[in-house]
């Protein structure tokens, strides 16, 4: 593969999964909350754990989103330093 194509595929790989990870985090948080409400506490605490789980899920989604962005920035910084060192 030529350089441009390789970079294109790498960029797609880097950012193509952001949306899915975000959705998966929210789904897991919401699912955990519903499970706690309906199965563990038999609906007595409904709907509180569902909302708490949803909030945690959304927070986890944003966390993984920022993690991807910050990772890229750190890598850029590192490569800049290495370029200067060479």
């Amino acid at each position, binding site marked *: 593969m030529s350089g441009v194509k390789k970079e294109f*595929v*790498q960029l*797609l*790989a*880097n950012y*193509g*999964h952001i949306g*899915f*990870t975000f*959705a*998966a*985090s929210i*789904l*897991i*948080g919401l699912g*955990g909350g519903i499970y706690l409400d309906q199965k563990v506490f038999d609906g007595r605490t409904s709907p509180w754990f569902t909302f708490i789980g949803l909030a*945690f*899920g959304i*927070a*986890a*989604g944003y*966390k*993984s989103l920022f*993690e991807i962005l910050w*990772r890229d920035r750190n890598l850029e910084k590192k490569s800049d330093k290495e370029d200067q060192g060479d």
Partner: protein
Amino acid sequence: MEHPILFISIILEKLGLPIPHGPVGHTFLEKLCEPYMTYTWLVMAFLFFVSKLTLGNLEMVPGKGQNFWEIVVGGMDDFFAENMGREMTDKLFPMIATFGLYIAIANLIGLIPGFMSPTASINTTLACTIIVWIVHHIIGFRAHGLNYYKHFIGPVWWLVWLLFPIELISNFARLISLSIRLFGNIMAKETLLTILFMLAGAFFAPLPIMILGVLVSLVQAMVFVLLTVVYISQADAHAH
């Protein structure tokens, strides 16, 4: 919907082996004859024999076949070393490179009529993902011992109640996003191709989707490898 023609299933059926007609077989033999199993073995055999044929006798001055593999393996080795360090690469290169090659071939094989992508089944992708997920935790425990829990509690102690569930959820989200993304992309490609073949196969309607399919296949294999490398390097690195 018309079932796609899978030639391995037809051959096995002619041989008298039971082919499951639902998505999941009931007996052990039926489970072994499911299309995604048989096509997984086909991909394994393909990778084995092609590398055997092209790398049967290594030479100092590489020929065509050896040259190809040197580029593929060398490129992956450089990429891993860049992202997770030389030591980790030497330890884990066989596993991750196998995943990369297997997923790439398994995705691409579905573009040929009569073949099916084994990765278009959630069983295959989930199996790969669980292996990766467990391995990155093992790497974390081996690198930090019991201090590995510090990866999950955030930087300051009074935010633990908030950050621990968040870290836990985003860690489990890896399991889902890695497996379902690969499965969903490839299954969508397969289903779209099947439908287009049925509707207007004679007018080359599936052709543009096939071109996109090549890109999707390579990108998804790349994503899987890249995320594996990133997760392992994060587990190996020090907590924030």
